[in-house]
């Protein structure tokens, strides 16, 4: 059973993502490891369709996005019960290259507990089911970035 004091943080925000603050909130006295993934705006893309990005504009269906982040956290806890704290954050608005846009962090007692996999799962699921979209603005114009995942019943 999940102890009642395991913190779960999920939010969609227009504010800067404060890693130190989030990390402090998901660190318990029993915590000895944190796996943190953060994604940022890439100004220069070289893989695949090479292009320059001036900025991205993110929007979200905020109440649903926060509910789905909670669902992702619940899925992480079901798969990796050793995970102690979970933080899932998506920043929205106009964001420029090098700016962190999302953060997924999981903490555990030790690093060999699956905590890296838990954070990886978190960002993969966020990109599948959390309703957030980005529009890319570059020298060649403006384009919505479309995902390719079709949620299944129950997701």
């Amino acid at each position, binding site marked *: 059973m999940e102890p009642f004091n395991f913190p779960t943080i999920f939010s969609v925000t227009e504010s800067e993502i404060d890693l130190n603050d989030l990390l402090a909130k998901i660190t318990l006295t029993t915590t000895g490891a944190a796996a943190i993934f953060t994604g940022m705006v890439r100004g220069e893309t070289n893989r695949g369709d090479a292009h320059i990005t001036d900025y991205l504009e993110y929007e979200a269906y905020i109440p649903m996005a926060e509910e789905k982040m909670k669902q992702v956290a619940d899925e992480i806890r079901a798969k990796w019960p050793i995970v102690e704290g979970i933080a899932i954050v998506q920043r929205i608005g106009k964001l420029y290259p090098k700016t962190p846009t*999302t953060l997924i962090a999981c903490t555990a007692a030790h690093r060999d507990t699956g905590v890296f996999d838990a954070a990886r799962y978190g960002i993969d699921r966020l990109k*599948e089911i959390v*309703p*957030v*979209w980005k529009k890319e603005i570059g020298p060649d114009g403006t384009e919505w970035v*479309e995902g390719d995942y079709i949620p*299944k019943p129950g997701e």
Partner: protein
Amino acid sequence: MNHIKLLFFATIRDRAGVKSLEMDIPVDMTIEDLKDKLSIDYPNLKESMKSVLMTINREYAFDEAVVPSNAEIGMFPPVSGG
């Protein structure tokens, strides 16, 4: 008739030209029926109906689902956050 609220996001909002709409629909209307109705009432949306994701009260919903009264219906393309 059931009163519902539609919320549009990303490409769907751009094509609809509005962020939201309210409308009355027949009691037994399914998600599939609603998409057909929107394709007729709002021709700009017709092309989007093939790939649109639909939600009922913030849960993903599929063609056979019946739209309940006072539902909040979300309509958007596959997500691209992160």
